[in-house]
Protein backbone atom coordinates (compact mmCIF):
# COMPACT_ATOMS: atom_id res chain seq x y z
CA UNK A 1 0.00 0.00 0.00
CA UNK A 2 1.20 3.50 -0.74
CA UNK A 3 -0.14 7.00 -1.38
CA UNK A 4 0.13 7.76 -5.10
CA UNK A 5 0.76 11.32 -6.34
CA UNK A 6 0.41 12.36 -9.96
CA UNK A 7 2.92 15.14 -10.55
CA UNK A 8 2.56 17.46 -13.53
CA UNK A 9 5.71 18.16 -15.51
CA UNK A 10 4.08 19.45 -18.65
CA UNK A 11 6.38 22.46 -18.76
CA UNK A 12 9.37 20.11 -18.91
CA UNK A 13 9.98 20.26 -15.19
CA UNK A 14 8.14 19.89 -11.91
CA UNK A 15 6.88 23.22 -10.59
CA UNK A 16 5.84 24.28 -7.12
CA UNK A 17 2.38 22.68 -7.17
CA UNK A 18 3.97 19.27 -7.73
CA UNK A 19 6.22 19.60 -4.69
CA UNK A 20 3.27 20.83 -2.63
CA UNK A 21 1.34 17.71 -3.59
CA UNK A 22 4.27 15.48 -2.59
CA UNK A 23 4.58 17.22 0.81
CA UNK A 24 0.84 16.81 1.28
CA UNK A 25 0.87 13.13 0.32
CA UNK A 26 3.76 12.57 2.72
CA UNK A 27 1.63 13.88 5.60
CA UNK A 28 -1.21 11.54 4.62
CA UNK A 29 1.21 8.62 4.21
CA UNK A 30 2.80 9.26 7.63
CA UNK A 31 -0.64 9.17 9.27
CA UNK A 32 -1.25 5.80 7.62
CA UNK A 33 2.30 4.52 8.23
CA UNK A 34 2.90 4.02 4.56
CA UNK A 35 5.04 5.45 1.75
CA UNK A 36 4.65 7.94 -1.12
CA UNK A 37 4.95 6.96 -4.77
CA UNK A 38 5.11 9.77 -7.31
CA UNK A 39 4.08 9.31 -10.94
CA UNK A 40 5.63 11.57 -13.55
CA UNK A 41 4.55 11.57 -17.21
CA UNK A 42 6.64 13.04 -20.00
CA UNK A 43 10.12 14.46 -20.05
CA UNK A 44 11.16 16.10 -16.81
CA UNK A 45 14.39 17.87 -15.92
CA UNK A 46 14.28 17.79 -12.12
CA UNK A 47 12.70 14.42 -11.35
CA UNK A 48 15.41 13.54 -8.83
CA UNK A 49 14.27 16.40 -6.54
CA UNK A 50 11.01 14.61 -5.71
CA UNK A 51 12.72 12.51 -3.02
CA UNK A 52 13.72 15.64 -1.12
CA UNK A 53 10.06 16.58 -0.72
CA UNK A 54 8.92 13.20 0.55
CA UNK A 55 8.56 10.74 -2.35
CA UNK A 56 9.97 7.27 -1.62
CA UNK A 57 9.68 6.06 -5.17
CA UNK A 58 9.07 7.70 -8.55
CA UNK A 59 7.41 5.96 -11.47
CA UNK A 60 8.41 7.67 -14.69
CA UNK A 61 6.62 7.29 -18.01
CA UNK A 62 8.74 9.20 -20.50
CA UNK A 63 6.76 8.50 -23.65
CA UNK A 64 3.13 9.53 -23.44
CA UNK A 65 0.83 12.20 -24.83
CA UNK A 66 0.51 14.46 -21.80
CA UNK A 67 -2.18 16.55 -23.51
CA UNK A 68 -4.62 13.63 -23.35
CA UNK A 69 -6.39 13.22 -20.01
CA UNK A 70 -7.69 9.83 -21.12
CA UNK A 71 -4.29 8.15 -21.46
CA UNK A 72 -3.02 9.95 -18.36
CA UNK A 73 -5.98 8.65 -16.36
CA UNK A 74 -5.28 5.10 -17.58
CA UNK A 75 -1.67 5.55 -16.52
CA UNK A 76 -2.68 6.72 -13.04
CA UNK A 77 -5.12 3.83 -12.63
CA UNK A 78 -2.44 1.31 -13.66
CA UNK A 79 0.03 2.86 -11.22
CA UNK A 80 -2.55 2.77 -8.43
CA UNK A 81 -3.11 -0.93 -9.11
CA UNK A 82 0.59 -1.71 -9.13
CA UNK A 83 1.28 0.29 -5.96
CA UNK A 84 -1.90 -0.93 -4.30
CA UNK A 85 -2.73 2.72 -3.61
CA UNK A 86 -6.09 3.61 -2.15
CA UNK A 87 -5.33 7.33 -1.82
CA UNK A 88 -4.44 9.22 -5.00
CA UNK A 89 -3.32 12.85 -4.81
CA UNK A 90 -3.22 15.52 -7.53
CA UNK A 91 -2.55 19.25 -7.55
CA UNK A 92 -5.73 21.20 -8.41
CA UNK A 93 -3.98 22.70 -11.43
CA UNK A 94 -4.77 22.55 -15.13
CA UNK A 95 -3.70 18.93 -15.50
CA UNK A 96 -5.18 17.81 -12.19
CA UNK A 97 -8.54 19.29 -13.16
CA UNK A 98 -8.54 17.19 -16.33
CA UNK A 99 -7.20 13.89 -15.01
CA UNK A 100 -8.38 13.55 -11.37
CA UNK A 101 -12.14 13.43 -12.20
CA UNK A 102 -11.50 10.69 -14.78
CA UNK A 103 -9.55 8.62 -12.27
CA UNK A 104 -12.29 9.05 -9.65
CA UNK A 105 -14.96 7.96 -12.15
CA UNK A 106 -12.93 4.95 -13.26
CA UNK A 107 -12.22 3.78 -9.70
CA UNK A 108 -15.71 4.71 -8.44
CA UNK A 109 -13.88 6.72 -5.81
CA UNK A 110 -15.08 9.76 -3.93
CA UNK A 111 -13.12 12.84 -5.02
CA UNK A 112 -12.46 16.04 -3.10
CA UNK A 113 -11.29 18.74 -5.51
CA UNK A 114 -9.26 21.67 -4.24
CA UNK A 115 -8.56 20.25 -0.78
CA UNK A 116 -7.21 22.74 1.76
CA UNK A 117 -6.61 20.53 4.80
CA UNK A 118 -4.97 17.25 5.70
CA UNK A 119 -7.67 14.55 5.92
CA UNK A 120 -8.65 13.79 9.51
CA UNK A 121 -8.89 10.22 10.85
CA UNK A 122 -12.35 9.68 9.34
CA UNK A 123 -11.13 11.16 6.04
CA UNK A 124 -13.03 14.42 6.26
CA UNK A 125 -11.32 17.13 4.23
CA UNK A 126 -11.87 20.89 4.13
CA UNK A 127 -12.29 22.68 0.80
CA UNK A 128 -13.49 26.12 -0.24
CA UNK A 129 -17.02 26.38 -1.64
CA UNK A 130 -19.17 29.25 -2.94
CA UNK A 131 -16.07 30.66 -4.66
CA UNK A 132 -14.17 31.11 -1.43
CA UNK A 133 -17.08 32.65 0.49
CA UNK A 134 -17.24 29.53 2.73
CA UNK A 135 -15.67 26.17 3.49
CA UNK A 136 -17.17 22.69 3.47
CA UNK A 137 -15.88 19.68 5.38
CA UNK A 138 -16.36 16.76 3.01
CA UNK A 139 -16.21 13.10 3.85
CA UNK A 140 -15.05 10.60 1.26
CA UNK A 141 -17.24 7.55 1.71
CA UNK A 142 -15.49 5.10 -0.58
CA UNK A 143 -12.50 2.93 0.19
CA UNK A 144 -10.52 4.45 -2.71
CA UNK A 145 -10.01 8.17 -2.37
CA UNK A 146 -9.01 10.87 -4.84
CA UNK A 147 -7.87 14.32 -3.68
CA UNK A 148 -6.55 17.40 -5.42
CA UNK A 149 -4.67 19.94 -3.33
CA UNK A 150 -5.48 23.64 -3.83
CA UNK A 151 -2.27 25.44 -4.95
CA UNK A 152 -0.39 27.58 -2.42
CA UNK A 153 -2.32 26.14 0.54
CA UNK A 154 0.71 24.93 2.46
CA UNK A 155 4.30 26.14 2.54
CA UNK A 156 6.54 23.84 0.48
CA UNK A 157 9.18 22.11 2.57
CA UNK A 158 12.26 20.15 1.66
CA UNK A 159 12.35 17.34 4.13
CA UNK A 160 15.39 15.49 2.80
CA UNK A 161 15.49 11.95 1.47
CA UNK A 162 15.83 10.43 -1.95
CA UNK A 163 13.64 8.35 -4.21
CA UNK A 164 14.26 5.45 -6.55
CA UNK A 165 13.29 6.35 -10.10
CA UNK A 166 11.67 3.42 -11.86
CA UNK A 167 10.62 3.44 -15.54
CA UNK A 168 6.89 2.70 -15.83
CA UNK A 169 5.50 1.72 -19.22
CA UNK A 170 2.11 0.05 -18.95
CA UNK A 171 -0.28 -0.30 -21.91
CA UNK A 172 -2.46 2.84 -21.97
CA UNK A 173 -4.02 2.64 -25.45
CA UNK A 174 -3.68 5.13 -28.27
CA UNK A 175 -4.31 8.82 -27.78
CA UNK A 176 -7.15 10.53 -29.64
CA UNK A 177 -5.98 14.09 -28.91
CA UNK A 178 -3.39 15.64 -31.22
CA UNK A 179 -1.32 18.65 -30.16
CA UNK A 180 -0.94 21.08 -33.08
CA UNK A 181 0.80 23.96 -31.40
CA UNK A 182 2.12 25.08 -28.03
CA UNK A 183 3.15 28.55 -26.94
CA UNK A 184 4.83 29.34 -23.65
CA UNK A 185 5.78 32.71 -22.31
CA UNK A 186 9.15 32.37 -20.68
CA UNK A 187 9.68 33.75 -17.23
CA UNK A 188 6.05 34.61 -16.52
CA UNK A 189 4.78 33.65 -13.10
CA UNK A 190 1.57 31.69 -13.36
CA UNK A 191 -1.28 33.35 -11.53
CA UNK A 192 -2.79 30.42 -9.60
CA UNK A 193 0.61 29.46 -8.19
CA UNK A 194 1.95 32.94 -7.45
CA UNK A 195 2.84 33.81 -3.86
CA UNK A 196 2.35 37.50 -4.53
CA UNK A 197 -0.24 38.97 -6.91
CA UNK A 198 -0.46 42.61 -8.02
CA UNK A 199 -3.92 43.28 -9.40
CA UNK A 200 -5.52 46.36 -10.87
CA UNK A 201 -8.98 47.50 -11.90
CA UNK A 202 -10.86 50.12 -13.79
CA UNK A 203 -9.32 52.78 -11.56
CA UNK A 204 -6.21 52.57 -13.78
CA UNK A 205 -8.23 54.36 -16.50
CA UNK A 206 -6.66 52.61 -19.51
CA UNK A 207 -4.26 49.90 -20.65
CA UNK A 208 -1.53 52.46 -21.30
CA UNK A 209 -1.27 53.00 -17.53
CA UNK A 210 -0.31 49.43 -16.65
CA UNK A 211 3.44 50.15 -16.65
CA UNK A 212 3.67 50.81 -12.88
CA UNK A 213 1.54 47.73 -12.13
CA UNK A 214 3.90 45.55 -14.14
CA UNK A 215 6.93 47.21 -12.62
CA UNK A 216 5.65 46.70 -9.08
CA UNK A 217 4.92 43.05 -9.89
CA UNK A 218 8.37 42.57 -11.34
CA UNK A 219 10.07 44.11 -8.33
CA UNK A 220 8.07 41.88 -5.98
CA UNK A 221 8.39 38.71 -8.10
CA UNK A 222 4.61 38.76 -8.39
CA UNK A 223 2.08 37.72 -11.02
CA UNK A 224 -0.27 40.36 -12.44
CA UNK A 225 -4.04 40.11 -12.35
CA UNK A 226 -7.07 42.31 -13.01
CA UNK A 227 -10.78 42.76 -12.34
CA UNK A 228 -13.34 41.42 -14.74
CA UNK A 229 -14.33 44.65 -16.56
CA UNK A 230 -10.65 45.26 -17.30
CA UNK A 231 -10.37 41.88 -19.05
CA UNK A 232 -13.77 42.30 -20.73
CA UNK A 233 -12.88 45.67 -22.28
CA UNK A 234 -9.64 44.12 -23.47
CA UNK A 235 -7.20 46.21 -21.42
CA UNK A 236 -5.69 42.98 -20.12
CA UNK A 237 -5.78 39.32 -21.26
CA UNK A 238 -8.62 37.08 -20.06
CA UNK A 239 -6.32 34.78 -18.14
CA UNK A 240 -5.61 37.63 -15.69
CA UNK A 241 -9.27 38.00 -14.70
CA UNK A 242 -9.71 37.00 -11.06
CA UNK A 243 -12.93 36.58 -9.16
CA UNK A 244 -15.97 34.40 -8.93
CA UNK A 245 -16.16 34.01 -12.70
CA UNK A 246 -12.41 34.16 -13.29
CA UNK A 247 -9.44 32.59 -11.59
CA UNK A 248 -9.55 32.10 -7.83
CA UNK A 249 -6.25 32.85 -6.18
CA UNK A 250 -4.89 32.30 -2.68
CA UNK A 251 -1.49 34.04 -2.59
CA UNK A 252 0.36 35.11 0.53
CA UNK A 253 -0.04 38.73 -0.56
CA UNK A 254 -2.69 40.28 -2.85
CA UNK A 255 -2.27 43.94 -3.74
CA UNK A 256 -5.38 45.51 -5.29
CA UNK A 257 -5.00 48.86 -7.03
CA UNK A 258 -8.04 50.82 -8.27
CA UNK A 259 -10.43 47.91 -7.71
CA UNK A 260 -13.68 48.69 -5.87
CA UNK A 261 -14.03 45.26 -4.21
CA UNK A 262 -17.34 44.01 -5.59
CA UNK A 263 -18.55 40.79 -3.98
CA UNK A 264 -17.77 38.83 -7.17
CA UNK A 265 -14.20 40.08 -7.16
CA UNK A 266 -13.71 39.38 -3.44
CA UNK A 267 -14.99 35.82 -3.91
CA UNK A 268 -11.93 35.01 -6.00
CA UNK A 269 -9.35 36.62 -3.74
CA UNK A 270 -10.56 36.37 -0.16
CA UNK A 271 -8.41 33.34 0.55
CA UNK A 272 -5.31 35.49 0.16
CA UNK A 273 -3.38 35.52 3.40
CA UNK A 274 -2.76 39.29 3.37
CA UNK A 275 -4.67 41.87 1.29
CA UNK A 276 -3.43 45.39 0.53
CA UNK A 277 -5.86 47.87 -1.03
CA UNK A 278 -4.91 51.08 -2.77
CA UNK A 279 -7.95 53.17 -3.73
CA UNK A 280 -8.71 56.86 -3.87
CA UNK A 281 -12.18 56.35 -2.44
CA UNK A 282 -12.08 55.78 1.34
CA UNK A 283 -15.55 54.21 1.07
CA UNK A 284 -14.46 51.54 -1.44
CA UNK A 285 -15.88 48.22 -0.16
CA UNK A 286 -12.50 46.52 -0.69
CA UNK A 287 -11.12 48.21 2.47
CA UNK A 288 -13.49 46.04 4.55
CA UNK A 289 -11.66 42.95 3.30
CA UNK A 290 -8.19 44.49 3.54
CA UNK A 291 -5.41 44.03 6.07
CA UNK A 292 -3.57 47.17 4.97
CA UNK A 293 -4.96 50.13 3.06
CA UNK A 294 -3.73 53.27 1.41
CA UNK A 295 -6.35 55.89 0.55
CA UNK A 296 -4.85 57.77 -2.34
CA UNK A 297 -4.49 58.26 -6.06
CA UNK A 298 -2.82 55.21 -7.61
CA UNK A 299 -0.90 57.39 -10.04
CA UNK A 300 0.79 59.15 -7.13
CA UNK A 301 1.11 56.20 -4.75
CA UNK A 302 2.52 53.62 -7.19
CA UNK A 303 5.80 55.41 -8.06
CA UNK A 304 6.50 55.95 -4.35
CA UNK A 305 5.64 52.34 -3.58
CA UNK A 306 7.90 51.03 -6.35
CA UNK A 307 10.66 53.21 -4.97
CA UNK A 308 10.12 51.84 -1.49
CA UNK A 309 10.27 48.25 -2.77
CA UNK A 310 13.51 48.98 -4.61
CA UNK A 311 15.04 50.50 -1.48
CA UNK A 312 13.84 47.55 0.60
CA UNK A 313 15.40 45.09 -1.84
CA UNK A 314 18.65 47.01 -1.93
CA UNK A 315 18.87 47.08 1.87
CA UNK A 316 18.00 43.37 2.13
CA UNK A 317 20.89 42.42 -0.12
Amino acid at each position, binding site marked *: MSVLVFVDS*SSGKIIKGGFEAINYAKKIADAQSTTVTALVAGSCANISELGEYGANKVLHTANINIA*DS*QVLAKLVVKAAEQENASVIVFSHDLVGRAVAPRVAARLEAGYV*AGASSIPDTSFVIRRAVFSGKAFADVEIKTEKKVLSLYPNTFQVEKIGGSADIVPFTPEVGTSRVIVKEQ*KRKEGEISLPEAEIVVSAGRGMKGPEHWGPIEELAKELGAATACSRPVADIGWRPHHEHVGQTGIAVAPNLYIAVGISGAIQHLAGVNRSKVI*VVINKDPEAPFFKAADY*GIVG*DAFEVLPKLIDAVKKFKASAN
Partner: protein
Amino acid sequence: MKLLVCISKVPDTTTKITFTDNNTKFNETGVQYIVNPYDEWYALVRALELKETMGGTVTIVTVGTAADEAVIRKALAIGADEAVRIDANPDDALFVARQIAAYAKDKAFDIIFTGKETIDYNGSQVGGMIAELLDLPFISLASKLDVNGSEATLETDIPGGMQVVTVNLPFVVSAAKGMAEARIPNMRGIMAARTKPLTVVSAFDDKRFTAIKSYSLPPEKKGCKYISADNPAELIDLLHNEAKVI
Protein backbone atom coordinates in the same frame (compact mmCIF):
# COMPACT_ATOMS: atom_id res chain seq x y z
CA MET B 1 -24.81 18.04 -35.00
CA LYS B 2 -26.30 16.72 -31.81
CA LEU B 3 -25.08 18.80 -28.92
CA LEU B 4 -25.62 18.28 -25.20
CA VAL B 5 -24.96 21.08 -22.69
CA CYS B 6 -24.83 20.28 -18.97
CA ILE B 7 -26.43 23.10 -17.03
CA SER B 8 -26.38 23.60 -13.31
CA LYS B 9 -28.24 25.99 -11.03
CA VAL B 10 -26.21 28.20 -8.68
CA PRO B 11 -26.94 31.05 -6.24
CA ASP B 12 -26.72 34.50 -7.81
CA THR B 13 -23.17 35.87 -7.57
CA THR B 14 -24.16 38.58 -5.04
CA THR B 15 -25.58 36.03 -2.57
CA LYS B 16 -24.44 36.34 1.01
CA ILE B 17 -23.68 32.80 2.11
CA THR B 18 -25.15 31.55 5.41
CA PHE B 19 -26.01 28.13 6.82
CA THR B 20 -28.75 26.50 8.91
CA ASP B 21 -29.26 23.27 10.84
CA ASN B 22 -26.13 23.63 12.91
CA ASN B 23 -24.06 24.61 9.84
CA THR B 24 -24.94 21.47 7.92
CA LYS B 25 -27.24 23.07 5.30
CA PHE B 26 -26.91 26.03 2.94
CA ASN B 27 -29.54 28.62 3.87
CA GLU B 28 -31.70 29.05 0.76
CA THR B 29 -33.98 31.71 2.28
CA GLY B 30 -34.18 34.64 -0.12
CA VAL B 31 -31.55 33.22 -2.46
CA GLN B 32 -31.99 33.97 -6.17
CA TYR B 33 -30.77 31.25 -8.51
CA ILE B 34 -29.14 31.66 -11.91
CA VAL B 35 -27.71 29.35 -14.57
CA ASN B 36 -24.06 28.70 -13.68
CA PRO B 37 -22.23 31.48 -15.62
CA TYR B 38 -19.72 29.16 -17.30
CA ASP B 39 -22.54 26.90 -18.51
CA GLU B 40 -24.63 29.80 -19.82
CA TRP B 41 -22.13 32.36 -21.10
CA TYR B 42 -19.66 30.01 -22.76
CA ALA B 43 -20.85 26.38 -23.08
CA LEU B 44 -24.45 27.04 -24.10
CA VAL B 45 -23.72 30.02 -26.33
CA ARG B 46 -20.94 28.21 -28.20
CA ALA B 47 -23.22 25.20 -28.68
CA LEU B 48 -25.92 27.51 -30.10
CA GLU B 49 -23.41 29.17 -32.45
CA LEU B 50 -22.31 25.77 -33.76
CA LYS B 51 -25.93 24.77 -34.32
CA GLU B 52 -26.62 28.05 -36.12
CA THR B 53 -23.75 27.56 -38.56
CA MET B 54 -23.84 23.77 -38.98
CA GLY B 55 -27.43 22.77 -38.16
CA GLY B 56 -28.51 20.31 -35.51
CA THR B 57 -30.03 20.40 -32.05
CA VAL B 58 -28.97 21.66 -28.64
CA THR B 59 -30.27 19.70 -25.66
CA ILE B 60 -29.65 20.87 -22.12
CA VAL B 61 -29.49 18.47 -19.20
CA THR B 62 -29.65 19.18 -15.47
CA VAL B 63 -29.50 16.85 -12.52
CA GLY B 64 -31.79 18.60 -10.06
CA THR B 65 -35.15 18.91 -8.41
CA ALA B 66 -38.39 20.54 -9.62
CA ALA B 67 -37.12 23.77 -8.03
CA ASP B 68 -34.55 24.02 -10.86
CA GLU B 69 -37.12 24.41 -13.62
CA ALA B 70 -37.14 28.24 -13.61
CA VAL B 71 -33.42 28.23 -14.31
CA ILE B 72 -33.84 25.54 -16.99
CA ARG B 73 -36.44 27.75 -18.75
CA LYS B 74 -33.91 30.56 -18.76
CA ALA B 75 -31.43 28.40 -20.64
CA LEU B 76 -34.22 27.45 -23.06
CA ALA B 77 -34.95 31.17 -23.56
CA ILE B 78 -31.38 31.74 -24.67
CA GLY B 79 -32.02 29.22 -27.44
CA ALA B 80 -31.63 25.55 -26.47
CA ASP B 81 -34.15 23.31 -28.25
CA GLU B 82 -35.15 21.00 -25.46
CA ALA B 83 -34.36 20.26 -21.84
CA VAL B 84 -34.00 17.14 -19.77
CA ARG B 85 -34.12 17.16 -16.00
CA ILE B 86 -32.82 14.10 -14.18
CA ASP B 87 -34.83 14.16 -11.01
CA ALA B 88 -32.43 13.97 -8.06
CA ASN B 89 -30.55 16.06 -5.56
CA PRO B 90 -27.16 16.87 -7.16
CA ASP B 91 -25.15 16.59 -3.97
CA ASP B 92 -22.13 14.63 -5.19
CA ALA B 93 -20.19 15.21 -8.42
CA LEU B 94 -19.68 11.56 -9.35
CA PHE B 95 -23.36 10.87 -8.71
CA VAL B 96 -24.26 13.75 -11.09
CA ALA B 97 -21.80 12.59 -13.75
CA ARG B 98 -23.10 9.02 -13.60
CA GLN B 99 -26.64 10.21 -14.15
CA ILE B 100 -25.69 12.35 -17.15
CA ALA B 101 -23.50 9.60 -18.63
CA ALA B 102 -26.32 7.08 -18.26
CA TYR B 103 -28.71 9.46 -20.02
CA ALA B 104 -26.26 10.32 -22.84
CA LYS B 105 -24.92 6.80 -23.39
CA ASP B 106 -27.04 5.69 -26.35
CA LYS B 107 -27.98 9.12 -27.76
CA ALA B 108 -24.95 9.69 -29.99
CA PHE B 109 -24.22 13.29 -29.02
CA ASP B 110 -21.37 14.76 -31.08
CA ILE B 111 -20.17 17.09 -28.33
CA ILE B 112 -21.04 17.15 -24.64
CA PHE B 113 -20.37 20.55 -23.06
CA THR B 114 -19.90 21.42 -19.41
CA GLY B 115 -18.78 24.66 -17.81
CA LYS B 116 -15.32 25.12 -16.31
CA GLU B 117 -16.77 24.72 -12.84
CA THR B 118 -19.88 25.50 -10.85
CA ILE B 119 -19.47 28.74 -8.90
CA ASP B 120 -20.97 27.15 -5.77
CA TYR B 121 -19.09 23.87 -5.42
CA ASN B 122 -16.20 24.84 -7.72
CA GLY B 123 -14.99 21.34 -8.38
CA SER B 124 -14.24 21.16 -12.14
CA GLN B 125 -15.27 17.54 -11.72
CA VAL B 126 -18.37 16.60 -13.65
CA GLY B 127 -17.04 17.00 -17.23
CA GLY B 128 -14.01 14.77 -16.85
CA MET B 129 -16.09 12.17 -15.05
CA ILE B 130 -18.70 12.04 -17.84
CA ALA B 131 -15.90 11.62 -20.40
CA GLU B 132 -14.38 8.72 -18.49
CA LEU B 133 -17.73 7.01 -18.00
CA LEU B 134 -18.49 7.27 -21.74
CA ASP B 135 -14.90 6.45 -22.76
CA LEU B 136 -14.57 9.76 -24.63
CA PRO B 137 -11.72 12.26 -24.95
CA PHE B 138 -12.05 15.24 -22.59
CA ILE B 139 -10.72 18.67 -23.47
CA SER B 140 -10.52 20.57 -20.21
CA LEU B 141 -10.93 24.37 -19.93
CA ALA B 142 -11.14 25.20 -23.62
CA SER B 143 -11.25 28.90 -24.47
CA LYS B 144 -11.89 28.31 -28.19
CA LEU B 145 -13.72 25.57 -30.10
CA ASP B 146 -14.20 25.20 -33.85
CA VAL B 147 -15.63 22.26 -35.73
CA ASN B 148 -14.72 21.27 -39.27
CA GLY B 149 -16.52 18.13 -40.48
CA SER B 150 -15.78 15.37 -38.00
CA GLU B 151 -12.81 17.14 -36.44
CA ALA B 152 -12.71 19.85 -33.77
CA THR B 153 -9.89 22.29 -33.03
CA LEU B 154 -9.63 23.67 -29.51
CA GLU B 155 -7.46 26.08 -27.58
CA THR B 156 -6.66 25.46 -23.94
CA ASP B 157 -4.37 26.93 -21.32
CA ILE B 158 -1.28 25.01 -20.27
CA PRO B 159 1.03 26.01 -17.42
CA GLY B 160 2.55 29.31 -18.54
CA GLY B 161 1.00 29.36 -22.00
CA MET B 162 -1.57 27.89 -24.37
CA GLN B 163 -1.95 25.00 -26.79
CA VAL B 164 -4.03 24.08 -29.80
CA VAL B 165 -5.30 20.51 -30.04
CA THR B 166 -7.49 18.60 -32.46
CA VAL B 167 -9.80 15.73 -31.67
CA ASN B 168 -12.44 13.80 -33.60
CA LEU B 169 -16.09 13.91 -32.60
CA PRO B 170 -17.50 12.76 -30.24
CA PHE B 171 -15.85 14.24 -27.16
CA VAL B 172 -16.54 16.12 -23.93
CA VAL B 173 -15.37 19.69 -23.41
CA SER B 174 -15.41 22.05 -20.42
CA ALA B 175 -15.87 25.67 -21.44
CA ALA B 176 -13.75 28.51 -20.03
CA LYS B 177 -13.87 32.24 -20.65
CA GLY B 178 -13.24 33.21 -24.26
CA MET B 179 -15.20 30.38 -25.89
CA ALA B 180 -18.16 32.68 -26.63
CA GLU B 181 -19.74 35.98 -25.68
CA ALA B 182 -22.67 35.94 -23.27
CA ARG B 183 -26.11 36.45 -24.82
CA ILE B 184 -29.13 38.12 -23.28
CA PRO B 185 -32.42 36.31 -23.94
CA ASN B 186 -34.94 38.36 -25.95
CA MET B 187 -38.72 38.46 -25.60
CA ARG B 188 -39.25 35.96 -28.41
CA GLY B 189 -36.85 33.54 -26.78
CA ILE B 190 -38.57 33.89 -23.43
CA MET B 191 -42.01 33.26 -25.01
CA ALA B 192 -40.74 30.30 -27.00
CA ALA B 193 -39.10 28.78 -23.92
CA ARG B 194 -42.48 28.31 -22.27
CA THR B 195 -43.55 25.70 -24.77
CA LYS B 196 -40.24 23.96 -25.45
CA PRO B 197 -40.13 20.35 -24.24
CA LEU B 198 -38.79 19.78 -20.72
CA THR B 199 -38.65 16.06 -20.04
CA VAL B 200 -38.19 14.71 -16.55
CA VAL B 201 -36.45 11.35 -16.19
CA SER B 202 -35.71 9.49 -13.00
CA ALA B 203 -32.24 8.81 -11.62
CA PHE B 204 -30.83 5.35 -12.34
CA ASP B 205 -29.29 4.80 -8.91
CA ASP B 206 -28.63 6.78 -5.78
CA LYS B 207 -25.04 5.97 -4.95
CA ARG B 208 -23.15 8.91 -3.37
CA PHE B 209 -19.36 8.91 -3.04
CA THR B 210 -18.81 11.96 -0.83
CA ALA B 211 -20.92 13.79 1.75
CA ILE B 212 -20.70 17.30 3.17
CA LYS B 213 -20.50 17.05 6.95
CA SER B 214 -20.56 20.75 7.80
CA TYR B 215 -19.91 24.25 6.52
CA SER B 216 -18.00 27.16 7.99
CA LEU B 217 -17.28 30.77 7.09
CA PRO B 218 -13.78 32.21 6.73
CA PRO B 219 -12.53 34.04 9.84
CA GLU B 220 -13.51 37.72 9.93
CA LYS B 221 -10.79 40.18 8.99
CA LYS B 222 -9.35 42.01 11.99
CA GLY B 223 -9.87 45.35 10.28
CA CYS B 224 -7.77 47.41 7.95
CA LYS B 225 -4.62 49.19 9.06
CA TYR B 226 -4.29 52.47 7.12
CA ILE B 227 -1.00 53.85 5.88
CA SER B 228 -0.49 57.41 4.69
CA ALA B 229 -0.43 57.84 0.91
CA ASP B 230 2.74 59.90 1.32
CA ASN B 231 4.66 57.12 3.00
CA PRO B 232 4.33 53.76 1.18
CA ALA B 233 7.70 52.78 2.70
CA GLU B 234 5.80 52.14 5.91
CA LEU B 235 3.64 49.61 4.05
CA ILE B 236 6.72 47.75 2.86
CA ASP B 237 8.04 47.74 6.42
CA LEU B 238 4.77 46.28 7.75
CA LEU B 239 4.59 43.66 5.01
CA HIS B 240 8.12 42.58 5.85
CA ASN B 241 8.21 42.79 9.65
CA GLU B 242 4.60 42.39 10.73
CA ALA B 243 2.83 40.33 8.05
CA LYS B 244 6.06 38.61 6.97
CA VAL B 245 4.90 38.15 3.38
CA ILE B 246 7.81 39.84 1.62
